[in-house]
């Protein structure tokens, strides 16, 4: 049976609350890590040369 992606997502993650709630908890932990990594990466790339780590590296 060919399922749409939304249908597949619903059946595996959203249908049963015993799956949904643990998925939220685990997903929160990993998405928090992912957001931390992504935003820090964006910040240091966009502000290259202005941050303290850059000016100290320049001096040594």
């Amino acid at each position: 049976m060919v399922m749409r992606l939304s249908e597949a997502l619903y059946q595996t993650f959203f249908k049963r609350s015993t799956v949904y709630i643990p998925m939220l908890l685990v997903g929160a932990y990993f998405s928090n890590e992912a957001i931390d990594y992504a935003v820090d990466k964006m910040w240091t790339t966009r502000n290259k040369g202005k941050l303290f780590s850059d000016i100290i590296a320049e001096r040594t």
Partner: protein
Amino acid sequence: MRTSLLRSLGKGLGLCAEATSSRVAQQTMPAVAAMSTSASDAEPTSKAAHYAAALGGVMAGIFGASCVASANEAADGLHAPHYPWGHEGVLDSYDHAAIRRGHKVYQQVCAACHSMQYLHWRQLVGVCYTEEEAKALAAETEVEDGPNDEGEMFTREGRLFDAFPSPYANEQAARYANGGAYPPDLTLISGGRHNGPNYIFSLLTGYRDPPAGISIREGLYYNPYFPGGAIAMPKMLVDGGVEYEDGTPASASQQAKDITTFLAWASYPYQDEMRVMGIKACLMISILIGFAAYSKRLRWAPIKSQRIVMDVVN
């Protein structure tokens, strides 16, 4: 319909423009009237046209209020232009090299008269100096401490937890040494003045001869950006006045830019962390809102799709 509304807007704008004699409103009025002259004037004044005329009046009022006669300009200080500071955008950090240079400018030029008594040496660590550099700078200053076991006050070298030294013991001493004028503490000056960084930069670079007809008394200096126009501080930043250790050419405007960045940091040191945390929070919260909305609609689906039948009981 739309062109006649525009005409009503123009009429309202024009009537009120003549009343307020506002330059901007009068300039706008012919433009708006020109847009609608091609249309025919067949329709009687509708309710929408009344509202459009009223809106024109309100716009003229706003234009009129924004172009206040320049008699207040000397009292309020010349409006500082907007400079493109590198730390303005929500994704931009402070230029920490400028903070470092700015601290040097403060030490060599400003610290003779201005205190920064709410800033501590430890706050510079990890921002513009390493711990060793900050310790060395603090150790060059003297701090009064005590009483010791003999009951006497003594002086010791500055440590990281000490505040920046003040040039005067108190406000009265500062006033006495500066002809009655108090050089304000600079820790929060960037946040405490309207349009802080632009104002400070303009002030420091804005010294000029007073225009014809304005004379400044002895001991004061003309600066159009200072409210009142007469400031007790002379022009302090000159080309080459400070030598930067990173080799940046120290023009007066470069020094002004660096000291303004340093003062902006001093007034809001946690800006960088707040911006990063804010971006992360906004991303996470929007994801959570998505799940909350989905869960709500999932649980409400049976109720929202109910069919309610009113049966008449005989």
